[in-house]
């Protein structure tokens, strides 16, 4: 069954007709040619498909496109401004925060969303005092980024990149 939906993707308004079974990830990649979100597991287990959905990080493989009609989607591709990389992207470059790069767009979107969560004062599983503004040390970065797996094991440099971007 088809449905017509409108999304803003990386700043562009897109209207398309989708089969209700299409996930947001497949709509982006297969229907709109936006291939920066990657399909790793397709079951919420790896984070490669992470995008910013109405400003919040989300796994695009576990939500149907039709459920996101009228939403704003930002992928790693849409983070750059005026051809200049986003500070988190620049930090990944400067710190060698990747090897093959497959997990990277998801890592970057997740990091951008995560840094906003920290700014908003959200605690994490490792935050000592739930009521104090969290301090983003390496343990906090690791916990908050645990939804993004890296098959190449670039974790040490990913943590450095995020630490630098947070400063």
């Amino acid at each position, binding site marked *: 069954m088809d449905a017509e939906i409108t999304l803003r993707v990386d700043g562009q308004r897109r209207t398309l007709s989708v089969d209700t079974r299409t996930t947001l990830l497949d709509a982006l990649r297969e229907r709109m040619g936006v291939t920066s979100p990657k399909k790793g597991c397709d079951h919420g287990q790896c*984070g490669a498909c992470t995008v910013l959905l109405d400003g919040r990080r989300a796994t695009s493989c*576990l939500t149907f496109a039709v459920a996101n009609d009228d939403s704003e989607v930002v992928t790693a591709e849409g983070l750059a401004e005026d051809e200049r990389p986003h500070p988190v992207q620049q930090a990944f470059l400067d710190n060698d925060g990747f090897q093959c790069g497959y997990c990277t767009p998801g890592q970057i979107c*997740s990091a951008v969303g995560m840094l906003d969560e920290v700014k908003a004062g959200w*605690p994490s599983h490792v935050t000592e005092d739930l*009521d104090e503004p969290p301090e983003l040390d390496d343990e906090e970065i690791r916990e908050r980024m645990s*939804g993004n797996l890296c098959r190449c094991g670039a974790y040490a440099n990913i943590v450095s990149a995020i630490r630098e971007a947070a400063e």
Partner: protein
Amino acid sequence: MKPFDYQRADDADSAIATVSGDPEARYIGGGTNLVDHMKLGITEPGKLVDITRLPYDSVEALPGGGVRIGATVRNSDLAASHVIRQRYPVLAQALLAGASGQLRNLATTGGNLLQRTRCSYFQDTSTPCNKREPGTGCSALEGWNRYHAVLGASEHCVATNPSDMAVALAALDATVLVRGQEGQRRIPVTELHRLPGDEPERETVLEHGELITAVELPAPSESSRSTYRKVRDRASYAFALVSVAAVVEVSEGAISHARIALGGLAHKPWRATAAEEALRGAPATEETFRNAAEAELAEARALRDNAFKIPMTRNTLSAVLRELTRQEGA
């Protein structure tokens, strides 16, 4: 995946009428469990009614000092809510111990409560499973059962409930508000989920078409302490092997009140009433903690791969009680 019709619900009554009137219809919240199951072929709804735009997305203070949590509040927003962090830390901690940041931003209160077991045979449609296909047998009973139940299981199903949030809600004496075609009813969260018995396919007491609208928490006692501790195979982003949610009050060195729920051990969040009984009025000592754990685990039965859960529960419960009673004295 089977084709399905999708509707965004604008009001609860018509959503309830639609789902109640169609055995193939299902509600969908964040979709993080249901979409997964549709991909795996475990569930094949003909119609999805999306409830995320219904006006159930707030956390409100109640006149008596309690809190009402709307069914579509996202897990991340609930964990970040100030009233939850300050007055119900066990709930914030349980939520933060579950899934990942990008999943918690999608997952809803109602969907979290109704998420289904992670039993690997249940998720694999090529293997027999009484829960997925009643009467086919239980592959886990003699199979790989490291994550499975040691309390309240049956020969028909040994699966565990995977929710962290529900364990905290059980220790908090939460009430689930449900609406159906016949009107509204209130269900203590400890009575929402069922033990498997000979009908493991029925996981809750809800009727088809009943909609969870909210969860209510009673006012916390000012002198109580609460915490959630989760033991798992890796430090983050993994389901519980064992978890403990506890709300404890100590006065003059004795435990005056304790509410404890255990996760990872049973088909439902397991309210540890025998342990609570053993703790009531007892001095806050190692011996008391151990006795409480032993009382609760007296009926525990291990399977091939999960005997470790029994001592792990004993140790985790003791550690939690030690922490909560020590904090009180500090």
